[in-house]
């Protein structure tokens, strides 16, 4: 059975599609090939433009074509004053919000591709000038465009493939699971993110792991040390198997390339306490500690490990390349 995908770009930057085009080093369509997927319409990939495209959407609304997966990329912009005029669907005199709301009723599954359509994302920052929201969330609150109680035709809530941009494989693997009929509600986390990636923390597999263990911290960009203490890294608090996967052919994601995790899979990431690139502290202690670790234990272990930090780790943490290689004491 063909699995029909309809993809719309709401108030997006187009980055989720750009990421999807790198999936498995050959692009989303090639990655989905074994699952008999058919793209009804995609703004970047389809030939149909103008009235031809509107006709495809209208056929879906009229029930003439089944949409198995409605994928939406980008925040839903409800403003100004609830009119949706900040994003009209070109050629139709209707808001994108209205189109999505109606099309979602016809879909077997609805997928929010990226943090914008999942939780509202970056357009919600700065007082949310466009009244942006996600499909079924507004920040961390259930609701959004479709409402807390919405379920698609298969009885599923909106499936949130969060991330800004998400790892391309999260997109294709979610769609593959759906096409194979193997994604159930139990396999979604509390914010409806597929658990195959959301059961991990971004911290897992971080290449700076040893620096974290010893609390040997970087204080400047390009230094090798852990970025949690000074540079705003939230990898111990954000879900995602980011650092267990290869990103664009390299080892891991953000920390491996030398910049902090900004928790882009989380609702509200767009408005951090303080600034993105600096750790918020109270009395010298980071405000955001590992997600499920008692604060007193964290403090005690941090103090202990700092006192045991090998010189190698301490020196390398403040350098942009390894200056002291690993060696037994009698070898050095």
């Amino acid at each position, binding site marked *: 059975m063909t699995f029909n995908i309809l993809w719309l*770009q709401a108030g997006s*930057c187009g980055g989720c599609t750009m990421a999807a*085009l790198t999936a498995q080093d050959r692009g989303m369509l090639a990655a989905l090939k074994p699952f008999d997927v058919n793209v009804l319409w995609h703004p970047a990939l389809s*030939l149909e433009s103008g009235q031809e495209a509107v006709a495809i959407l209208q056929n879906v609304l009229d029930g003439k074509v089944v949409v198995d997966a409605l994928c939406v990329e980008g925040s839903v912009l409800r403003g100004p004053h609830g009119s949706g005029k*900040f994003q009209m669907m070109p050629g139709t005199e209707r808001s994108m919000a209205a189109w999505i709301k109606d099309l979602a009723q016809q879909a077997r599954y609805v997928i929010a591709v990226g943090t914008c359509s999942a939780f509202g994302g970056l*357009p919600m920052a700065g007082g949310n000038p466009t009244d942006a929201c996600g499909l079924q969330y507004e920040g961390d609150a259930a609701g959004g465009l479709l409402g807390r109680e919405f379920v698609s035709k298969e009885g599923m809530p909106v499936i949130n493939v969060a991330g800004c941009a998400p790892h391309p494989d999260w997109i294709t693997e979610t769609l593959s699971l759906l096409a194979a009929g193997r994604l159930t509600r139990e396999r979604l986390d509390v914010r409806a993110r597929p658990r195959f990636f959301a059961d991990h923390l971004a911290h897992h597999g971080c290449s700076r792991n040893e620096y974290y263990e010893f609390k040997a911290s970087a204080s*400047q960009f*390009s230094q090798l040390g852990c970025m949690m203490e000074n540079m705003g890294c939230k990898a111990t608090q954000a879900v995602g198997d980011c650092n267990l996967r290869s990103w664009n052919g390299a080892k891991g994601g953000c920390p491996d390339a030398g910049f902090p995790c900004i928790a882009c899979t989380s609702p509200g990431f767009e408005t951090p306490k303080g600034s993105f690139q600096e750790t918020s502290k109270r009395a010298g202690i980071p405000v955001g500690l590992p997600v499920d670790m008692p604060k007193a234990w964290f403090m005690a272990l941090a103090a202990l490990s700092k006192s045991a930090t090998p010189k190698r780790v301490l020196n390398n943490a403040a350098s942009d390349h390894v200056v002291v290689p690993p060696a037994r004491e009698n070898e050095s």
Partner: protein
Amino acid sequence: MTRRIIGPFNRVEGDLEITLDIDGGVVREARVNASLYRGFEQILLGRPALDAISITPRICGICSVSQSVATVAALADAFAIKPAPNGQLGINLIHGAENLADHLTHFYLFFMPDFARPVYSNKPWFAEVERRFAAKTGLGAQAWLVARARLLHVTGILAGKWPHTLAVQPGGLTHAPDDGELMHLRSILADVRDFLQNTVFGTTLERIVELDRRPALDDAIEASLAAAGDFGLFGAVARDLSLENLGLGYDRFMSFGAYHGEGGALFAPGIMDGGAPLALDPNVFSEDPSHAWLMGDVAHPLDGETLPYADRVDAYTWCKAPRVEGRPVEVGAVARQLIADQPLIRDLIGKGPANVFARVIARLLESARIVLAMEDWAARLQAHASVCVETGGADQTSGIGVGLVEAARGSLGHWLRVENGLIQHYQIIAPTTWNFSPRDKHGQPGPLEFALQNTPVDDDEPTPASVQHVVRSFDPCMVCTVH
């Protein structure tokens, strides 16, 4: 006179609607509607200065690194920071990778599929074009996506994830590559070169970048056709459809200069007005909101603001009209190569306007030049030299900064003012804001609006192919346009 509204206009990045007034089988007037507003300039206000590095790349998932580079250039200008030269090489590499990815994605996924439309099914080249370029199934596009993923490994190694990296900072690059990664980069670039030589051009990059005159280009197209190059196939289509007579724009072009380094820009900045070179002076820029759903009057980007006003009379887009001394300019690869004095592009355009053919040729020629430049940067990048200078000593509490860079689609400028460490002012003019601007208060059409005039259209075609060729020849990025 009949009016036709075309939208959603896809295979452009983002949202676009075009209104055409048609009479006697040609477009008399065109109006371009960028139909999305996201409010980034409002969102940036009041944020700590360096937060801009996390926010502005998310304007655009296609030109994400360009937005990073522009933000960082503006911040470095405001705080008098000079990036580490070795880091600048790395930044040029990831910026070059993104721009090259954009150029060829435009060619394979956005522009060429229109020639596989049924309207051309009786053309002698149709079967081959359909085989190579049909949307979703074209073999050329499939091969390109494999090559594109490999190319973006450059960003993987130097900048982690793409899009939306934070690897570009005012002090330089956040990741110092090791010896092994340097060699890995060069292997990737060898594969990229192979794709361009074997699949795109059917000849060497050196031969392409040395093209200097129209006859030499015609020879290269014939040779490419014989070697089954996609460049040659485009050349054959372009000749048959006379694409050089389609989409004639203004004869004024601008480039901010691309790929900066210690020796200046690889592609020089400037303005070309009717064949006469002029110096680039950002002080004479203005943005005119008179036909946009935005408040205010004509202003320089350091003075103007971007605030929505959905009831504005005479407005038909969310895009302002940027002007140089009150006049529209075309930006993009064709402008960049013309101003960089590339002889072939100078020969194709002369003192006149660009056209659909020249825009595409410039993009492909520039792609070859980018690969050669990337090979050079990769060879010069050092494993044990600093990629990022310490910026802690710089006064980052106040300053005014301007960041002028070239994205794949043309000139991108960020203007900001920081007070007490917080952003008090931020304005962005993106490439497609220049190209797809609406009319200004004097009624002058924007470059695309002008280029669409006199386009022949067929009454039977609700979305005329000719119009699609003209629009897509600019490689619009609407998400940047409307930020």
